[in-house]
């Protein structure tokens, strides 16, 4: 299980946001898009970017936390948040190359994907619908993971050119 990872194919994302619904149903008990650990950005219609933790091999978020609220789950390599210790300072958000963590809209504590303890819900619904924008892979940690921790608007700008050609440079 230590080798699982969620591979993502931005161009394949339909924007259905069922991943958010599934994630929040599991972790919050009901649909709560802004509390979902995966959020799909749409800086322009047609450009949908699923945004979630990439489990960077060097975990900049963990190092940045002044209260040591963050740690690595030895089983899944996901980032775990100790909500008691978190002081909502936002250091992890700033340290993360993709600014992935969110402060939970309920308790304002850092909230990061925990890979559903090894059984990711978001991947299941994405796969069920045949989109496969999210895929569960079995591969060891790598420095490349960090390439997937990126600001969603930056990703969308590239997608824009990929989809729309020259016009893509001006839509966002």
């Amino acid at each position, binding site marked *: 299980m230590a080798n699982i990872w969620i591979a993502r194919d931005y161009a*394949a994302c339909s924007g259905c946001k069922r991943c958010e619904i599934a994630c929040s149903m599991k972790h919050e008990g009901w649909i709560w898009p802004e509390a979902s650990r995966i959020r799909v950005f749409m800086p322009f219609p047609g450009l949908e970017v699923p945004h979630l933790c990439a489990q960077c091999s060097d975990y900049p978020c963990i190092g940045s936390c002044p209260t040591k609220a963050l740690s690595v789950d030895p089983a899944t390599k996901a980032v775990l948040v100790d909500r008691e210790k978190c002081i909502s300072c936002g250091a992890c958000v700033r340290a993360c190359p993709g600014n992935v963590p969110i402060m939970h809209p309920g308790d304002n504590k850092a909230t990061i994907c925990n890979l559903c303890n090894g059984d990711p819900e978001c991947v299941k619904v994405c796969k069920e619908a045949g989109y496969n924008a999210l895929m569960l892979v079995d591969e060891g940690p790598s420095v490349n993971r960090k390439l997937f921790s990126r600001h969603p608007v930056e990703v969308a700008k590239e997608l824009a050119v990929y989809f729309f050609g020259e016009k893509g440079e001006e839509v966002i």
Partner: protein
Amino acid sequence: MPGGYAGKFLDVDLTKERVKEVSFDDKTLWQYFGGRGLAAKILWDRVGKKWENLDPYAPESPLIVLTGPMTGIYPGGRICVSGKSPVSMGTVGSTASTEFAHELRCAGYDGVIFTGKAEKPVYFLVTNDGGEIMPAEHLWGKVGEETIKMLNREVGEEMKKRKPNVGIWREPGMVYIGPAGENMVRNSGVMSKICHAAGYGGYGALMGSKKLKAVVAKGRGKMPAPDAPEAAKLLWKKAHQILIANSEMRRYGTGYLGYTVGADLSSEPIKNWQTEWHDEKSYAGPRFEQYWVKKKWADFNCTTNCMKVSCIKNGRWKGDITDLPDYELQAYCGTNLGLFEPVDNIHMSALIDNLGHSGINGPNTMGFAAELYQRKILTKKDIGFELNWGDVEAFTKLAWMIAKREGIGDVLAEGSYRAAIKIAEMKGKKPEELLKYVVHVKGIEIGAHGTRSDMDYVHDASYAGNVQGGDHTSTIGDGYSDMSDAIFADSGVFCDFCRTNRELEFDFAKAVTGFPITVESWRKETGPRIVTLQRALLMLGGPDLKWEPVKDDDNPPRFYEPLPEGPYKGKTTDKKRVDQKLMAYFETLGWDERGIPTKETLKRLDIADLEPYMKKMRA
């Protein structure tokens, strides 16, 4: 409170710049549910005896933007826009898919009711802290794409300024108007996501009359809680399983129908409906598909993904982006204007949406104008250029002229029905001489499905009996039954293409709301209540027009002309069957033989306050 509702609505007076919260009691929600139904109820309660004299553009005329208890929970999240229709003078529950709907609910509100008129252009911003009127002079005049881009940026920055420390703010959801709505093009739409429109009813114009450019929401809260969460979650899974199995729709959307509806069914509008048959191979699905840059595109909580993203990457229309286009626009922004090249159709659809015309209604008027040109009633001198079928440059110019109300565009901006009357006057003709070329019911231009071949899903009385006129999503089919389903989707407020089956949908509604709602209760009570109220308001009419029962409960003359060509050549709509079905439909709903609700019906449906008005109409 029942489940599935946020429980609060925003009541905005744009003149006095006052925003307050209102709510509706459980009985009202049970009786009218949400969206289309609740909007009609709110309108009637607010306008009441002033209805007949109320100009939809008057400041006191409400613009209502509502979700329903199913919105964002049941697949296919939509918003319902309503008000007194500037086109039909009745009410339409006009829906469009948009993330705005669930953002609004997550901000804690089920809807927004606007009255008054802003002095300068504004937009309305809803967050978990409430609603605010924001300046929008810089957005006025902007087309759809530009509006989205600018609002995404500025609302994003504003949110970040207010709460800088919560992680990246995601873009808000929004509905907006284009230049057409701003200039009160009577049949213009309220738009979302560049290519979606709450198109029927003319609510773009109503929004423009209030100088309201956009309604924007960013919600960080939970979706309103359902009454029975475990059941709701289970039904959510089941509903998606059904949609995911709908492989045909998911693969093609409606993007291959621009050819097949014409070629196989003979029910596609061509050159203002002069014919409904074509066999143009140039219009075949694969020729559209080559422009699809994304083959699966879905709205919030949708797995039907009927949309594809199309983009023209080179040539004279380089940079035009739209969805498939869907069938309605392949027809209205294509064949109906005599355009049979996919690239021209993609361009025309993108332009029409960007300008905020409703993609069915605006181009219906353009087709009407082109037929007048063909018949030499309108001339080059009237228009400023030649308006020949298939001339994409000419129609491009015309679309802009209507949106900006320039030249003949100012007349055409009144929609097909009123434009016909005006042009007849200009040309010293009788209105009937031009109205025979207008394809509408109750002023609302008809969707892209004809009845003459009787091969499509619409038949004889489908539009004739529709309280929303030419709206192809709300037709009566073989009686009241189809409309009952449409009222349910428009009032629960979810997408028509995410229908699963009645049993599941009503179980879903029950799990979400906790109401004892069933197929039966909807069929027999709620649906009839809503459609009866809509019928009454439609027939009460408005200051500039009043429909005549029975006479106006009919198809346009063109639908009785024999089809001139194709495999169904000579066929036409059977007037006798129209009349028979209409009578049966009136009877099912407890309306008299002129379609006026009876006293007993009004009483049974708990809308007896309509009786004095209906009594007058019965006399």
